[in-house]
């Protein structure tokens, strides 16, 4: 058995990922946006008695070292020495793709060219003579269609054949004519290098100023950089040509030769479907309305309809909760075993989150559709002008959308997607603003508060919440880019607008499920781990001895009252001990919660039947019907149950108040009181920094009764908290501004390569949040503004500030003179020149 190492290379949007999935059988993230595949993806599989290791390199237009993706790819080639390079080429866009092919061929390793999307090319009337290409490039060329699953076997055959024929491989050379003597000089210099890489390739790369290769050679030839510069200058002085531009032109010309000799376009000049669609989608007057309509549709489908779906999924979760409680040891009147308490706590935490899975699934599916269709870069195109104004980049759109610019997302993938932004200043600003977006884990928290305090205005409030974050992010980005990020390097906006593609149902469902799974996985690991710690922090140090005695007395009294009254009934012998009474109470609670979890009449009858079978006598007390003696018991039982729940709630609140977390919450109350936060909210904020999901879990658990019942967190909060809608508004505004979670902060650290930026990303938003929510609450209280009105004022203010900043002229124009060309768009010409000068320095 032989091992074959394969590198999969190709330009963005060539369908490389679908080819990878087809041959290796591993599903991964595929999108239509340049630069989504940044991580290294490996597939291990067997083919025809060969062990194949296939690495999916990031999509790059070129093989220089100017972007991170290109550096990653080149380092892989240098360090890992693949046996075969598979170059995926978009058959419908062959010329530009061949530009990369030439660079790959030059590396001096065997290449297999895969002409992907042959079906698309055929549909567009593009005839390609692949055999002729194969002959001209002297490498195997395979026709395929990843989306249709065609060509997988042929690709693998070509890979194996090429790997086996490695020893008869003849080096691929382009004759660079005028540049040849200079290449030769460098090649001669490095001919004794111990590097196993192709010398000629290295020589060419050195003349291109490729930093990766120069670093690679510097260990042996410390003066290689100067030597290269000398040759480049010489070439320039003889031919008045720049070597970089010369090489690129030469390769494009070579690609052009192949294109003209092997490709026949029958529909040339004819409008493609993409052209027709873009006439509407990118139309000057329609583009923005369409964009907002799409955003609104996404919002309606995911949040509004998704929320309605939870009405159907909630009973399932309630049933799960009841099932778990049934497994746990039963309570003995007001003495609830810690084990049971813990189980209820954990199930409540998990359920509060699981309830939102339908919303997430719809949202992720919609985002996947937009990515696959190719709408994302169009969004960047439409909105770049605005983003640019605030120091961001059109490419900030994707990270912001993933982070939750449209209704909800997750800052973790959002921050990670900033890798693709070439402009360093805009990239930093995007990293630091993505956490302001609507984290999906915050959405449950908002819906909880909205459900509790803004039922009639829920849609309006949700609209404010999901759109105001974008304005806040823009303001913050503007502030950051004009202050602390001012000295960062900027880069050009050069972005492909790929043709539209129909998304496949399978692809969308798989990706949506994967993302939902990530969410669930995060819930299981982080949130449940946090829930355990929190449970401990809420239990310790527990009730004081005095309180324990006090509650015990209250319990005794309640039981005595019951006992005295029960004697009047002929059923008294059945309920004359404490054990029997608590048994009956547990039976009663269990029945109540099961009845409420079922909505159908048949279900209710089934529950009745089950409980009748468990204990026929007890069932009489719960449903006495005409039995007068049983009715007496029923009446006092219900009363007793109420008293018991009250005692339990008081015990719990006291326990939480005295707990470690309660103390911490109280300790910051002096600051947060101006925002109207009491210690319970503080506890929720403190406890939720590990993962915002647990804010709902904590609040839900704090306000909910201890026993199994069907009351949702919203209802519990509304009934038990004592907040006004203005409180809720201040809380929402603070939540909008606080960074989502520890995971996000870790990713921020990874992307900025600094702990200082991470700390900044934590403390700046929190400070901002305290200040703004305090002002809103204090002003709202003074002028007795309602919660909704306070939100409207806040929203209008933020939008106003953003507009002022956006309309404020760019500061960069601070010089005059020079070559005066007639300008159509004033100012912009100069801005870029300034950036260039910075780059040259």
């Amino acid at each position, binding site marked *: 058995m032989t091992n074959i190492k394969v590198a999969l290379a190709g330009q963005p949007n060539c369908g490389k990922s679908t080819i990878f999935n087809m041959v290796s059988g591993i599903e991964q993230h595929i999108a239509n946006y340049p630069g989504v595949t940044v991580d290294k993806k490996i597939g291990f599989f067997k083919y025809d008695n060969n062990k194949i290791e296939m690495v999916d390199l990031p999509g790059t237009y070129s093989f220089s070292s100017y972007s991170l993706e290109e550096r990653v790819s080149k380092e892989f080639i240098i360090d890992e020495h693949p046996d075969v390079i598979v170059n995926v080429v978009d058959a419908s866009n062959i010329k530009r793709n061949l530009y990369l092919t030439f660079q790959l061929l030059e590396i001096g390793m065997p290449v297999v060219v895969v002409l992907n999307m042959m079906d698309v090319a055929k549909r567009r009337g593009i005839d390609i003579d692949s055999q002729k290409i194969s002959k001209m490039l002297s490498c195997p060329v395979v026709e395929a269609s990843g989306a249709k699953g065609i060509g997988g076997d042929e690709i693998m055959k070509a890979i194996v054949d090429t790997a086996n024929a490695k020893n008869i491989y003849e080096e691929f050379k382009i004759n660079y004519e005028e540049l040849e003597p200079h290449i030769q000089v460098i090649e001669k210099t490095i001919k004794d290098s111990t590097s196993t890489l192709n010398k000629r390739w290295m020589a060419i790369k050195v003349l291109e100023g490729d930093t990766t290769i120069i670093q690679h050679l510097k260990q042996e030839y410390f003066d290689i950089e100067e030597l290269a510069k000398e040759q480049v200058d010489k070439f320039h002085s003889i031919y008045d040509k720049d070597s970089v531009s010369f090489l690129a032109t030469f390769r494009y010309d070579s690609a052009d030769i192949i294109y003209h000799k092997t490709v026949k376009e029958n529909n040339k000049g004819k409008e493609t479907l993409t052209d027709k669609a873009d006439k509407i989608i990118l139309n000057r007057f329609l583009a923005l309305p369409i964009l907002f309509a799409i955003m609104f549709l996404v919002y309606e489908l995911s949040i509004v309809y998704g929320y309605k779906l939870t009405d159907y999924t909630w009973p399932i979760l309630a049933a799960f909760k009841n099932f778990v409680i049934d497994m746990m040891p039963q309570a003995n009147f007001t003495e609830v075993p810690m084990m049971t308490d813990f189980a209820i706590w954990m199930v409540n935490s998990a359920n509060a989150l699981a309830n939102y899975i339908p919303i997430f699934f719809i949202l992720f599916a919609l985002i996947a559709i937009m990515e696959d269709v190719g709408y994302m870069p169009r969004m960047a195109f439409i909105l770049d002008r605005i983003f640019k104004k605030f120091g961001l980049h059109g490419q900030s759109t994707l990270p912001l959308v993933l982070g939750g610019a449209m209704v909800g997302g997750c800052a973790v993938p959002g921050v990670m997607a900033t890798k693709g932004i070439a402009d360093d200043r805009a990239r930093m600003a995007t990293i630091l603003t993505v956490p302001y977006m609507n984290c999906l884990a915050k959405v449950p928290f908002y819906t909880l508060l909205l459900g509790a305090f803004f039922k009639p205005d829920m849609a309006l409030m949700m609209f404010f919440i999901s759109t105001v974050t974008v304005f806040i992010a823009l303001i913050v980005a503007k502030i950051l880019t004009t202050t602390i990020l001012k000295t960062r390097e900027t880069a050009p*906006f050069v972005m492909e607008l790929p043709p539209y593609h129909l998304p496949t149902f399978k692809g969308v469902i798989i990706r949506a499920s994967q993302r939902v799974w990530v969410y669930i996985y995060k819930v299981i690991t982080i949130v449940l781990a946090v829930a355990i710690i929190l449970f401990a922090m809420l239990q310790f140090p527990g009730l004081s001895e005095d309180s324990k005695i006090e509650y015990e007395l209250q319990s005794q009294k309640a039981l005595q009252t019951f006992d005295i009254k029960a004697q009047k009934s002929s059923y008294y012998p059945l309920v004359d001990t404490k054990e029997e009474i608590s048994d009956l109470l547990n039976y009663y609670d269990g029945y109540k919660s099961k009845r409420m979890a079922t909505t159908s009449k048949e279900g209710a009858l089934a529950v009745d039947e089950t409980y009748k079978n468990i204990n026929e006598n007890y069932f009489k007390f719960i449903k006495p019907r005409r039995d007068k003696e049983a009715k007496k018991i029923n009446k006092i039982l219900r009363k007793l149950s109420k008293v018991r729940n009250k005692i339990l709630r008081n015990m719990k609140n006291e326990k939480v108040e005295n707990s470690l977390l309660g103390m911490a919450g109280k300790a910051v109350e002096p600051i947060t009181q101006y925002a109207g936060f009491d210690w319970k909210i503080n506890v929720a904020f403190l406890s939720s920094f590990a993962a915002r999901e647990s804010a709902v879990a904590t609040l839900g658990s704090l306000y909910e009764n201890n026993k199994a019942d069907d009351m949702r967190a919203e209802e519990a909060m509304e009934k038990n908290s004592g907040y006004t809608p203005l409180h809720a508004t201040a809380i929402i505004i603070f939540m909008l501004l606080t960074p989502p979670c520890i995971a996000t902060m870790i990713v921020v650290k990874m992307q900025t390569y600094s702990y200082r930026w991470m700390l900044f990303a934590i403390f700046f938003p929190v400070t901002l949040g305290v200040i703004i929510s305090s002002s809103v609450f204090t002003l709202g209280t003074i002028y007795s503004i309602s919660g909704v009105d306070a939100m409207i004022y806040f929203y209008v203010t933020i939008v106003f500030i953003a507009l002022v900043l956006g309309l404020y002229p760019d500061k960069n124009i601070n010089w005059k003179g020079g070559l005066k060309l007639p300008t159509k768009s004033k100012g912009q*010409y100069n801005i870029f020149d300034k950036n260039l000068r910075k780059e040259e320095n």
Partner: protein
Amino acid sequence: MKLDKPNQRLDMMNQGQKVQVVKIHTTGKLMHKLLDMGFVNGSDIEVIREAPLFDPMELKIHNYNISLRKSEASLIEVITL
């Protein structure tokens, strides 16, 4: 190439105009990026449209579509065809 026409800047071209690259007045990262995307001397460009907010412009080059900010397009010298 028609020599009687003066060279112009790409950002000043209107929708539907067809031009040819003459020279790119830049260096470094941007130069590399533009070359890689096919803005080599002699390539044909068609101006497809401006973005709704007038700034980035959409171009067709080597039979695919690309968008450039006008600030970058202003560095590309072209002649109209």
